[in-house]
Structures are given as C-alpha cells and as structure tokens.
C-alpha cells in the first residue's frame, strides 16, 4: 500500500446505481425462543435512497440489519437485497452489501493496512492494495497504517470499520449506529463516505436524530420489532411528474406493520 493521493480527492464508494428497489422486505420476522425481535416487517428502499432506521433500544433495528446482511436467518418472510433473494444468501448478494455493525469487526493484532488487505483478498479485489491505500488516506489512518489496530482509539477503530465496509464498493450499505465513537470530523467523514455517498442505498440505524436531516432522505421507525412509521423516500411514479416547488423531501407515508410496502 504505497499509493499516494490528494487528501481532498473524491472517494468512490459504490459501483453505481443498483437495481430497483435496492432493498425489499415482505413480512420479514425473526424470533428468539418464541419472542419476536423483528415482527412481519415490510418495506422497500429505492436504489440510491438513504434511510434512517430509528427506534428505542430493543426495537429490533440490529436484528433487522443482521437479517438483511445475511448474518441471521429469518424465521418467516422474505427479502431481496440488490436484486438477490435473501433466502439464497449467495456470494453475489454478499458482494453487494457493505456492513458496519456494533462491533468494528477488525483484527486487533493486524495493522489497519493488513486488515484491509485481508478483506480485499476475501472480496477478490484486483486493485486491493490501491483501494486500501485510498481508503486509509480517506479515513485519516494512512500515518498509522503499520501500527497494530489494538493501539488505535475507539474512533479510529470506527473509521477503519468504515473503510472495511466500503472497501468493495457495495451498492447497499447496512449500518448499525455507525457514528458511535466518532468525533465531529469522523461523523463528517462517515456522511461523505457512506451516508451520503452518491449511488449508494443506505439503511442506517441511529440514535442521533438531530443529524439525520443532513443525510437521510427517509426514515423507518421500529417499535418492539414492528414498523410503526414508514417515511421512506418513494421513487417517482411512471411517467415521472415534476415535483412541485417546495415539496417536502420525505413523503411521510405511515403504514401498519405487516402490510407490504406500497
């Protein structure tokens, strides 16, 4: 990883526009010992939309993200992510998803450069070294690329986790409280690289309600595993009709839990 790049150069985070809709869940459920963590959740995220996933602790946000990331198998229901059926959970689907979870998912004994190099090999990135260098510059860890990850601060771990999540340029990003541990510059970086990355569909669980207006084009609110508010940005109907001047960015459509999205 020896590539040098200007610090303000734009970072490519996505392969481009994904198929429509980018994420679609129909009656998706997950129960643990009979207790529903996610209960018949249905929604559809258009390609390129950026949705804040809101809800109190235990509302089911993390479980929903884990379901969509193929890390947890659903008890009922179905979902499609980036055009691929969740039930198949094949390599093509996983190639199209980038995930930031509660844990940074990093090897403490490896350096930041080694962490990214390892994941680049798993994703068979032909430009893995260059891509890793580009992202280490972007997240401000180039100067510490050869130190053990264990010595980095919590915020630096999160920056590296962000670099790992966007390493393979996924068209869909699933983020679980990605701002945790980040300072103001880190949050700005998060918004630039992930939350507001052009062409990327984002579903991000967050408790930072005051910041979502800055990046979210819609929101999905969970309570006890069910959707209680669905204000997801809708794609324009065909044929497209010009929006009225001053129309709100969010079409606040509230649907009851269990109903398929409109």
């Amino acid at each position: 990883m020896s590539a040098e790049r200007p610090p303000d150069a734009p970072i490519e985070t996505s392969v481009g526009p994904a198929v429509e809709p980018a994420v679609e869940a129909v009656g998706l459920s997950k129960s643990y010992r009979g207790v529903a963590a996610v209960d018949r959740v249905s929604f559809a995220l258009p390609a390129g939309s950026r949705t804040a996933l809101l809800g109190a602790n235990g509302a089911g946000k993390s479980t929903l993200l884990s379901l969509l990331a193929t890390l947890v198998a659903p008890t009922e229901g179905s979902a499609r992510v980036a055009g691929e059926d969740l039930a198949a959970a094949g390599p093509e689907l996983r190639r199209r998803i980038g995930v930031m979870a509660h844990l940074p998912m990093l090897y403490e004994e490896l350096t930041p450069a080694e962490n990214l190099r390892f994941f680049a090999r798993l994703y068979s990135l032909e430009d893995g070294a260059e891509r890793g260098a580009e992202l280490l510059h972007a997240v401000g860890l180039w100067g510490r690329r050869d130190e053990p990850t264990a010595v980095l601060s919590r915020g630096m771990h999160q920056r590296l986790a962000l670099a790992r999540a966007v390493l393979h340029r996924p068209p869909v990003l699933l983020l679980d409280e990605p701002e945790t541990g980040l300072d103001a510059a880190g949050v700005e970086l998060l918004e630039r690289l992930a939350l507001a990355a052009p062409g990327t569909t984002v579903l991000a669980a967050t408790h930072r309600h005051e910041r979502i207006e800055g990046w979210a084009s819609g929101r999905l609110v969970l309570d006890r595993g069910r959707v209680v508010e669905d204000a997801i940005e809708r794609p324009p109907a065909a044929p497209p009709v010009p929006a009225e001047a001053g129309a709100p960015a969010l079409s606040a459509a509230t649907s009851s839990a269990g109903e398929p999205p409109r």
Partner: protein
Amino acid sequence: MRAALAVMEKDLRLAWRDRAGWLTAVSFAAISVLIYSFALDLAAREVRPLLPGLLWVTFLFAGIVSSGASFQTEGERGTLDAQLLAPVARTALYAGKLLANLLALLVVEVATLGLATILFDESLLTLELGGIVLLGTVGYVSLVTVLATLGSRVRARAVLMPVLALPLLVPLLIAAVRATGGALGEPTGDAPWLLLLAVFAVWAAAGSALLFPLAVER
C-alpha cells in the same frame, strides 16, 4: 482457493502475534513430556508400550488449547461475521481455518516428538510415525475446528468441547494410539489400525466441511 489461503495466512499471522495460543500449547506439550519422562524413568524397551498413549494425550490437549482461544476471539470481536459477509464459500473459510490449525499443531507435534526422542531414547522422528501423526491430526483438527466454530456461536462454549469433542474423538484416538504402537513395534492385534485411522480422518474432514456452514448459522 484464494480465500482459503487468505484465511490460512491471516490465522497463522494472528496466532504468531498473539502468542498466547501457541506458547501455551508448546509449553503444555513440553511440560507433559518432561513429567512423563521423569515419572516413568524406565528403559526404552519398557517405556515403549506407554508412549503412544502419552503422545496422543499430549497432542489432544495441546490442540484444544491452541485452537479454542482463537475461535472464541473471532466470535467476540465479530470478525467471524465479517468473514461470513464476504462473497466466498463457507467451505473455503473452513478450509483456511483447518489448514492454519493443522500447520500450527503439526509444528507443536514435531517439536514434541523431537523432545520425546531425546528424553525417552526412542527414535520417534520416522517417516512412518510422521504419516500416522499427520493422519490423526487431520481428523482431529477437522473436528476441533468445526466444534470450536460452533462453540463461538453458543453461550455454553465452555462445556461444548469436552461434551461433544472428546466422545467424537475416541475412535480416532484409539486408532491413532494403536497405529502408533504398531509403528513402534508393539503388538496391536489383527485390526488394520492405519486404515481405520485414514478412514476416520477422511470422514472427519469431509463431515466437518459439510457441517461448517450449519455451524456458523444463527
């Protein structure tokens, strides 16, 4: 194959840097052989019938010590999930982990055989014995790898290994001990122990590869 090699290299690098796993395994193996040598204090001819059992008990626990901790860490840090998110076959991840564990334990075993050769005055670094140890270790590490993965997913991980692994390993250990005895010139009966050991090693490796995708499910 590229993914399996990447996982293997990563696991070996982690094991080397962490030190705790392999140092504990090496120390345990060395101390065990030393204690046996001083406790038995027998001539080479008299100690020979006991050697196969002593060696395989040492290999068994050294393997559990060296492989269990790394999986627990993978589960706790979420790095196992990070690998599962990658667009590679689960069996490739398993193969990488298996190869890393296999290489690490084989190094400990060769060192143990070298030390035992000196302490027991018995030539143990032979090609025949090396083949038996390799076969036994393939079967053993296959099972331990998949069970350690399963252990990283459940709360009762502390009891999983003794409850599940040890009974599953009994046929392997019997075959390995008897085949080792045969290689050392001890009477082992008419049973084809080496063949049984090979069959068990293949069964364990294939079965564990099939079981691994289920072991990582949540």
